[in-house]
């Protein structure tokens, strides 16, 4: 099991799947970092985005890598509206209530998908789905490699936006000190909504990059939620680099522990790492010290 023939591909696989996790987690870390809530609806949004990508392919003939440019803005708008007109007002600004509201929304979205589209698993067949890059001892799936590059691109874009644009500064201000930001004239409700919108857009991007090698059904997003939360807290809430690095780390840990402990028991690696990191460094890898 320790031979490089197996180890190296396992590590590479871990990085590639970690990149997909990163895309899901990037959105969540913004939402988490700014809104300070655990967004239970994230997985359901991923399921919805996968359905959107599926129908974009089936009905509009759009390849997922093209559809992403259409779906990201749509999901940004969707997220904005959700936060601004539903989650925000319904939760009256209380963390705890936001949690329940997003839980309710998650139930609604997932079951609306079930009701509308039934539970059949759907897949798309794109020509490059089975293309691989041969690197000697193993084959790397092309869609996964594209996903890897995309994760970095999105992370970079987010980081640039957060650091250099007014909106990004406003988001950081609200995340750090809501009252002060409000007093300084920032429209907090708008910023909250923008953040949620960005998070949802990231989910849409993740979906488009995931769909070539995965499948679609109403509860498919659930499988990614726990991991996404883990990564967000591990990387430090609100930290874009933290989410990316944390995701890649988790991907590799998952892969290696799956290799050594078996796929079932190996899942434990993710959570053990998570627990250990938190016990030692409670604010996460890149989080600000409390």
């Amino acid at each position, binding site marked *: 099991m320790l*031979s490089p*023939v*197996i180890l190296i*591909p*396992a590590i590479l*696989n871990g990085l590639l*799947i970690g990149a997909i996790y990163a895309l899901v987690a990037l959105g969540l870390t913004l939402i988490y970092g700014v809104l300070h809530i655990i967004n239970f609806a994230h997985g359901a949004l991923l399921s919805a985005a996968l359905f959107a990508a599926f129908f974009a392919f089936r009905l509009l003939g759009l390849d997922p890598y093209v559809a992403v440019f259409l779906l990201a803005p749509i999901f940004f708008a969707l997220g904005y509206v959700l936060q601004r007109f539903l989650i925000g007002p319904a939760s009256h600004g209380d963390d705890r209530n936001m949690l329940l509201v997003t839980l309710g929304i998650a139930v609604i979205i997932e*079951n609306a998908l*079930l009701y*509308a589209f*039934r*539970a*059949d*698993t759907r*897949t798309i*067949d794109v020509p490059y789905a*089975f293309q*691989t890059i041969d690197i000697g001892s*193993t*084959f790397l*799936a092309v869609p996964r490699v594209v996903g890897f590059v995309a994760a970095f691109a999105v992370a970079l874009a987010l980081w640039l936006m957060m650091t250099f644009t007014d909106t990004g500064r406003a988001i950081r201000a609200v995340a750090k000190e809501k009252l002060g930001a409000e007093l300084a004239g920032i429209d907090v409700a708008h910023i909250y909504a923008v953040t949620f919108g960005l998070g949802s857009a990231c989910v849409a991007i993740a979906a488009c990059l995931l769909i070539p*090698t*995965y*499948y679609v*059904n*109403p*509860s*498919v997003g*659930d*499988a*990614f939620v726990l991991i996404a939360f883990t990564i967000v807290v591990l990387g430090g809430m609100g930290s874009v680099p933290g989410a990316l690095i944390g995701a890649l780390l988790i991907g590799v840990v998952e*892969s290696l522990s*799956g*290799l050594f402990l*078996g*796929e*079932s028991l190996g*899942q434990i690696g993710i959570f053990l790492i998570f627990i250990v990191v938190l016990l030692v460094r409670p604010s996460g890898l890149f989080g600000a010290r409390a």
Partner: protein
Amino acid sequence: MSKHKISFSRRQFLATTALGAAAAATGSVAMPTVLRAQGAPVKLGVLHPVTGALSYSGQQGRLGATMAIEEINAVGGIKELGKIDAVLGDAQSTPEGGTAEVEKMNSAGVACIVGGYASNICLATTQAAARYELPYVVDVGVADGIVTRGLKNTFRFGPGFGVISKTALANLTTINDQAGKPAKTVMIVHEDSLFGSGLAKLLNAQLPQQGFEILETIPHPTPTRDFNNVVLKIKAQNPDIVIPANYYNEYVLLARTMQQQQVKPKGIYSVLGGAASSYKFVKEFPDAARYIMDCNHWFDPRNEKAQALKKKVEGKDQFFTYEVYMNYSCVYLIADALQRAGSADRAKLTAALASSTFSGHLMPYGPTKFINGQNEGAAPVNTQVLDNDIKVVLPSAFANAKPLFPRPA
């Protein structure tokens, strides 16, 4: 694709109380717990996990059961007893959900319940029904524990995994022998909950007895997001045969990943493989599906009623999956028992089921014979994906093709 499930209980209720089209249009809100008019039809509980993780299988199961009921009612129902009134229940993919539905069905006065689908749901629901001596026909649930608890009300139409693994192994040995014994080493990939683990345990005990060497047994959770590592291990150890036992989504992911990594063992021999004998899989991924063998529930291909049902189901734009025809068969079994019992009385129905020798089903089982609740003739069948179609390769009495093994290069 029909989005609006016809609510049988509501339709019949409205018809019998003569509220008519107006009420049907507005949609009645009250649950039909009101006492019925005299000469009430026979009520049959149809319980499946139509929401939650198992919703696809649950919906297919419900489809099969309701199609059978529709057909029976179309020719006037059961002799002397009248039409069947379906009381639909959603187990919500959990044992608690299933139990609550059993209670409701019992309250509604059902003569019998069919369904459950998943083993853990069936364990709870059969038990709950046993309290009321309410006969319960399990459609799929393969755990042996379902029929070994001494519950008089529980009948299982299909095979349990004890029989399944024995048959699978015997057939594997036959296929291997017929090909000149090219295969010696095996790797098992199974989902880690009740059916996968139970099956793997039995296979682990029995495979060595037939001269096979198990290189590794790999459990995986449902859902599993990525099979690359599993395939890496398969590639590294290069078994002659890979034996998957899991649900549809994971099976497809595994098969696609194997295709991607160009891992081509001498044979992929599934036991209760989630997609291995699925028309959907064959249609959507013909390359990954080619030559895959499965030992699974399957209908009797020579049975004309089965072929007719297949056409009907495909006409509704659905796939002809095992949940459909097993539930369909179960309902006909119950209808036959009701007719023989001459009444909807639970005790009489239980006795009729226990003494049943029913052949009007679609499965290659022969006439039913229940011993301690298990239909003795029930057995899985071996299929193989050949010519973009699923053919039965064993037992030869039902076969419509010969097994192709080892897999051509």
